[in-house]
């Protein structure tokens, strides 16, 4: 049983509008038997943070195309994307590059 982890989540480029206009979120993920990965984080965000229109943020089991993800200020494509295992105090940023946000 892994301990709960605290994360700093940021939403920008218009993605914040789906989260009540709030850009910064300090969240704590509950402890679970396996470590948290990005795929699970997205499910958790969808269930706990998203205020509206989930299809504008997640599609299938990943983020909607056009939304960039940075983990600790690096491209998540370098970090294994969905399979990246989150650590306590990680900083995860979602930036929409889409026209309407």
């Amino acid at each position: 049983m892994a301990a709960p982890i605290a994360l700093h989540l940021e939403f920008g480029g218009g993605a914040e509008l789906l989260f009540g206009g709030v850009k910064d979120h300090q969240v704590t993920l509950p402890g679970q038997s396996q470590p948290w990965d990005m795929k699970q984080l997205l499910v958790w965000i969808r269930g706990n943070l998203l205020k509206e229109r989930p299809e504008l943020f997640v599609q299938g089991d990943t983020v909607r195309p056009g939304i960039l993800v940075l983990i600790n200020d690096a491209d998540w494509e370098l970090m294994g994307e969905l399979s990246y295992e989150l650590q306590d105090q990680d900083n995860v940023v979602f930036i929409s590059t889409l026209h309407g946000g």
Partner: protein
Amino acid sequence: MCQVDEEYNEQLEKRTVPSVSQRCVKCKEGTAALIIRAGDAFCRGCFKDYFVHKFRAMLGKNRLIFPGERVLLAVSGGQASSSMLAQVQEGLSRNAPKKLRFTPGIIYIDEGGACGQSMEEREGVIAELETMFRATGYPFHIVHLEQVFDLPISVLEAVSSAPQRPEGSYKAAVEQFVQNARVKGSCSPGEGHMDPAVLDAQIQLSHLDTQDLANGTPPSSLQHQQDLERLFASVRTLTAKEDMLQTLRQHLIVHTARTKGYTKVMMGDSCSRLAVKLLSNISLGRGASLAVDTGFSDQRYGDVIIVRPMRDYSSKEIAFYNRMFGVPSIFIPGLDTKAPEKASIQHLTESFVTMLQADFPSTVSTIYRTSEKLHTARPPHSSEMETVAKCLLCLCALDTKEAEEASAFHATLVSERLSEKRVPESAQVGSASTADTVGQCCSSGVGQEGGCSSRGQGCCSSNLTPVTPDLKSLLCYSCRLTIKDMTGVESLPPYIVSEAERRHRRSQMKKEISEFLLDDEEDEVAAS
């Protein structure tokens, strides 16, 4: 349980692999921070060099902006145009041989009135942008979309372009400029050649420009706010709304550039944005104007040239640069914010392209390279420019000559005429459209070939003077579609309606006196 633990260990190892071993492909030393368009991993430092270099290279390669020239930066507050502003700052402050040497100003078009923002929201956004612009020290102009109702009709005239500078004059101009700067001696690195006193005065002027707005006065008269609301309410589809907004915004930018003495306008379109624009413009029937709509430079306005220096950057590169190097930007909700995927052609195209891009990373660059291969067939002589009929709204060459039998425009026209015959006029709810099509072939300022005489529907004899001006004959294929999506043209800003009437009167007069004039062709024959 045992198996889970095994997987867990394996994943742990995998996770540590990329962050440690992924090295920058450029310097081979730095830790990779992002994967850019080409699929290469760059470190932070190399990415910055690459990004900064690309901007100057783009301007250097095209040699369109002359030293000392006044350039208006169109900044929407969004990521791409804010990044463009940061690149201009970077390029101007640099004390390097490849330093940029033009004189920038900033324009922001406040579209809140068309996008349903409250006055408080708009004022909040403007205050934030003013802080951002003031920090640059450049003069800035904040223009409200409502101001289209005060535009003069001259906006719709393409002023014949300034005399073409001969080849090689660019280099001479740069040398001259550098020499002048040296003569002046100690110029501060930040402001280049500018006299500090002049700069100071300019900054003060720009503050004056916006001060009357900042001091609690509403951005525009209540009347114009209502006019704008009425205008956008009369446009039925989001597709046409977006197109209308784009057209009006462009008119305001060009007008501001002209009245404030700018000869170039820089727009922040990224290659991701241009790829979407290219495809959606094809769907919107703007195929004939693709080259000017998406190319590096756009000369349709004649005296003011639009350039797109960000067209080599993907939206990912821009977002990463802004994030890594603290470039401020503001997200301002637009017409299509939170809209469903199929809300408009532009929006749907964007979803399509980004989705394709996710699976095939070369999608955007492929589309973008296609756009580079497009060229407009320009009339050989600049004197001909004035005689080439231009669309009333987008100022592109009219593609609506009926001569081209195979065009989409022709097909639409034929089906329109067929359906017109079947439907009795009284049954037409929006009867304006019927009047339009009838009037259209008469007042054809479009096709010199006339088109209507050959078809002989007898419409030419009717001396039709429509109450609302017939816009169709003055518009390109695509702008016609937009106007067609409006419930009426009465809500259009006065400068558009007046210019339409003026063009009609002119073509009417031309027709009336044509009997007494020798044809151009006869003229030529006589002369030779």
